[in-house]
């Protein structure tokens, strides 16, 4: 069988990343050929600076060893430069005469250093800083030469200067602008940077332009002359004054170029058979010189090469980090500010710390940090999400830890952590293991990190910290987690896409969803199946049929699996109220089934732990109580205090209110667990401030709070509304929960949903819009009406064989 042929011109990070993405999507679609001018397999160009500085060697930075090409069935031509593209014959021709035909062509020729057009530019000893060849030339030069001059005070120039200094040379940086890194830092931060580099022994000539490079009789570099006529000696000159996209090949083939090969949002050039990615392209008028955008381009391009046709590239927001050990700087977005923007500045020049945040229309639009960059990842996240700052504005300068984190996410900062410090408390992963995985396995994204190390893969509270470690380890290569995430690896569609398709096209089964949205796997995975199951039954109650095989075990068997594969049983106790008769039955059951532990839960109920699966149905039968749903993404419990009936401070009957709410919400499935509490007075003994819905009685009625959370990250519930009657409490509570049920992403708690849509939106839907509120309330009641108690159903014989092993064998 003849597969279509894909030819890649350029064996660098952008081209090969595209191929990796393509192979992940469609491993057998193409017969792939790769041409590279360099004699090396794909290596991490960004890590050339650590190589120059003597912190790593070349083999450390190879991303794809030759064996990878072989295993992936790629025909690799090393050391061959493509000289011509014959578009009418769909053929490329290499310097040695090799000819290969293509059906699809991917151009990833990267960029070249800009060479100042001054006399003497061709002298021996004038080099650029672009690839491993240049790096090795510099390392060799540093052994025998003394005076190095780096032309250009940008990222590359400073990294080169630092490396040469570390290798023992006397280094001067010549820069045209008034401050260093003027495209990445404002002048204050640039001056701080200059100061600390000067302390390391580097010299700077700013606002200086070169007029000629001077040579000796042997044709070697001897010095530099500037516009003002002054001269300095030099025996090595590194040109690092910017890059230019390599478009010569594309231009000669007649492809439209303008400071880069022009591509559309699918990375396609003006010839539909030809795609281009990386530093050689110009997208919406921008040519990027950092790695993160290239990776985003690679992902989109691969999607189209794989004939899926759904991704678009809309440009990248950039962030910067200098890879000079011991110097922390970070900038992103519009860090200079200007018309219509406001600035928050923290400046401690003596302590070497400077932070500037630029805000426009209540959104963070730029950040420039020097000296303390621990919050860079967090600022970058806020910036990309375009989140309204609101109250956050008062604390934002003091960093993420100032906004109410507790637990592992709070007090550890990536930069200051030791290798032995634990990052992921759930899976016991320490910083050293994460850094090792990132460097050894060449990881760039949080998802990859999760898969390889398990860090951030359980409760997720350390995800921010892991992103920080990624960022500080790989620098600018860091690939930010996309804002809208695909549901899982089976699809590129987001949760919202899936919900919309189910609603608008009335999809009623998993297979209908998989077919309609062209799932990549035949029947999904353990991540998407439960999500889709929830979306189906919540969108089409009484029509879509619950699929037990798409439920996590706890929801399938209606009990909570424990580490030894036994289960825990929590019967319903509405509002935490029980009776002597129930307690006697619980005691009898515990005796009869030899239950190893009986424990009072945090939700005012009783937990029977260590029940064997085959005993579950009999335990429920003997208890004669309803399911407490302590195992599900569902209503859990309504915690109450004793309230006005007994308490001398109580203002309302909070216990009865709790019982009424729990009765109304019985058997409710939801995107994640839902916990409520009702307190009888503002002393709030039922801890309503950290519940999904918290109700606090006051003398004149009830106050409702939503979006609280006592778990991974403590979140205080926000005030929603004050109402008079208990009937209103039920209506507003139901309306809010139904809105959450209809719009939240699966596994988002109410606080995450609120964070996404904003409290204002929720108030508009639930408080201001009376008819809308009634409709939400009625939709919830419609969904819940007639739902059977799952324990009762199973005692009646539903899914019987789930609980019974096939008989024992020898």
């Amino acid at each position, binding site marked *: 069988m003849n597969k279509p042929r894909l030819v890649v011109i350029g064996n660098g990070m952008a081209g090969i990343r595209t191929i990796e993405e393509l192979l992940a999507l469609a491993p057998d679609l193409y017969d792939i050929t790769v041409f590279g001018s360099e004699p090396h397999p794909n290596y991490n160009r960004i890590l050339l600076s650590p190589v120059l500085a003597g912190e790593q060697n070349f083999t450390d930075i190879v991303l794809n060893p030759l064996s990878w090409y072989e295993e992936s069935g790629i025909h690799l031509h090393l050391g061959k430069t493509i000289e011509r593209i014959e578009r009418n014959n769909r053929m490329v021709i290499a310097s040695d005469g090799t000819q290969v035909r293509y059906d699809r062509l991917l151009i990833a020729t990267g960029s070249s250093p800009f060479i100042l057009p001054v006399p003497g530019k061709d002298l021996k000893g004038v080099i650029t800083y672009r690839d491993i060849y240049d790096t090795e030339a510099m390392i060799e030069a540093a052994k025998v030469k003394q005076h190095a001059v780096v032309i250009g005070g940008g990222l590359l120039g400073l990294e080169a200067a630092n490396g040469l200094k570390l290798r023992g040379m006397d280094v001067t940086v010549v820069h045209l602008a008034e401050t260093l890194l003027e495209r990445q830092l404002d002048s204050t931060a640039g001056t701080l940077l200059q100061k600390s580099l000067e302390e390391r022994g580097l010299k700077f000539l700013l606002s200086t332009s070169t007029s000629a490079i001077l040579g000796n009789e042997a044709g070697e570099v001897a010095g530099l002359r500037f516009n003002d006529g002054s001269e300095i000696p030099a025996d090595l000159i590194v040109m690092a004054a910017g890059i230019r996209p390599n478009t010569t090949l594309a231009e000669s083939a007649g492809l439209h170029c303008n400071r880069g090969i022009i591509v559309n949002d699918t990375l396609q050039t003006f010839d539909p058979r030809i795609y281009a990615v990386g530093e050689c392209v110009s997208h919406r008028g921008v040519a990027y010189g950092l790695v993160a955008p290239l990776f985003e381009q690679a992902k989109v391009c691969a999607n189209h090469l794989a004939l899926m046709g759904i991704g678009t590239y809309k440009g990248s927001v950039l962030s910067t980090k200098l890879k000079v050990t011991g110097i922390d700087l970070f900038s992103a977005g519009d860090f200079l500010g200007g018309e219509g923007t406001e600035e928050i500045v923290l400046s401690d020049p003596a302590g070497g710390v400077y932070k500037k945040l630029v805000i426009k229309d209540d959104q963070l639009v730029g950040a420039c940090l020097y000296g303390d960059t621990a919050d860079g990842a967090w600022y970058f996240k806020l910036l990309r999400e375009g989140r309204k700052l609101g109250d956050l504005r008062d604390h934002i300068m003091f960093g993420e830890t100032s906004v109410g984190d507790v637990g592992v996410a709070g007090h550890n900062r990536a930069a200051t952590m030791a290798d032995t410090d634990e990052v992921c408390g759930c899976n016991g992963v320490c910083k050293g293991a994460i850094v090792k995985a990132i460097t050894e396995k060449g990881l760039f994204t949080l998802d990859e990190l999760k898969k390889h190390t398990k860090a951030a893969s359980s409760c997720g509270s350390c995800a921010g910290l892991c992103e920080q470690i990624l960022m500080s380890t790989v620098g600018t290569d860091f690939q930010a987690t996309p804002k809208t995430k695909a549901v899982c690896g089976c699809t590129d569609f987001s949760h919202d896409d899936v919900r919309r398709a189910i609603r608008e096209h009335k999809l009623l089964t998993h297979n209908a969803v998989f077919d309609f949205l062209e799932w990549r796997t035949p*029947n999904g995975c353990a991540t998407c199946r439960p999500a889709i199951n929830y979306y189906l039954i919540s969108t089409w109650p009484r029509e879509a049929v619950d699929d037990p095989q798409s*439920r996590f*075990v706890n929801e399938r068997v209606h009990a909570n699996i424990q580490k030894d594969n036994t289960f825990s049983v929590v019967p319903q106790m509405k509002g935490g109220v029980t009776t002597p008769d129930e307690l006697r039955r619980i005691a009898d059951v515990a005796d009869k089934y030899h239950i190893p532990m009986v424990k009072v839960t945090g939700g005012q109920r009783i937990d029977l732990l260590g029940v064997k699966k085959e005993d579950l149905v009999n335990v429920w039968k003997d208890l004669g109580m309803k399911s407490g749903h302590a195992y599900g993404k569902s209503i859990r419990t309504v915690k109450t205090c004793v309230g006005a009936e007994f308490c001398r401070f109580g203002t309302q009957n909070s216990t009865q209110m709790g019982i009424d709410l729990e009765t109304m919400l019985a058997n409710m499935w939801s995107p994640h667990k839902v916990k409520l509490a009702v307190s009888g007075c503002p002393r709030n003994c039922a801890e309503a401030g950290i519940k999904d819905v918290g109700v606090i009685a006051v003398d004149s009625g009830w106050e409702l709070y939503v979006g609280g959370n006592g778990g991974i990250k403590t979140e205080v519930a926000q005030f929603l509304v004050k109402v008079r009657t208990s009937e209103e409490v039920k209506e507003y509570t139901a309306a809010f929960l139904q809105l959450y049920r209809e719009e939240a992403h699966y596994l988002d708690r109410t606080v995450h949903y609120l964070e996404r849509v904003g409290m204002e939106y929720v108030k508009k839907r639930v408080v201001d819009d009376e008819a809308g509120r009634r409709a939400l309330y009625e939709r919830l009641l419609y969904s819940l009406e007639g739902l059977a108690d799952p324990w009762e159903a199973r005692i009646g014989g539903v899914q019987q064989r789930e609980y019974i092993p096939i008989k024992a064998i020898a």
Partner: protein
Amino acid sequence: MNMPLTGNWTRACEVEDIPRLGSRVLERAAGNIAIFRNAQDQVFALLDRCPHKAGALSQGIVHGNAVTCPLHAWNIALDTGHACAPDEGCTQRFPIKVEGGEVFISLD
């Protein structure tokens, strides 16, 4: 499917006894065995013990030809018993044959 060298087949159950994309447990003193059925009605048998922390694989979600352990979400290939990359580990696999809708297992 690899055939055992000897002909010691034990009848386990009928294919229809196992839910599609689900499993049943075969009790055994030397460790329970989980019998799985995929969407194409192929049947597989693995020791009911995840190589990670001994979770009961029979309780996991079955998808494609893999099962996700309910304890820490490792994916185990049903046909080989190997953990899917990047996890590393392996659980014991038992040969199965299906004849006339009946499932036989080899415990040799």
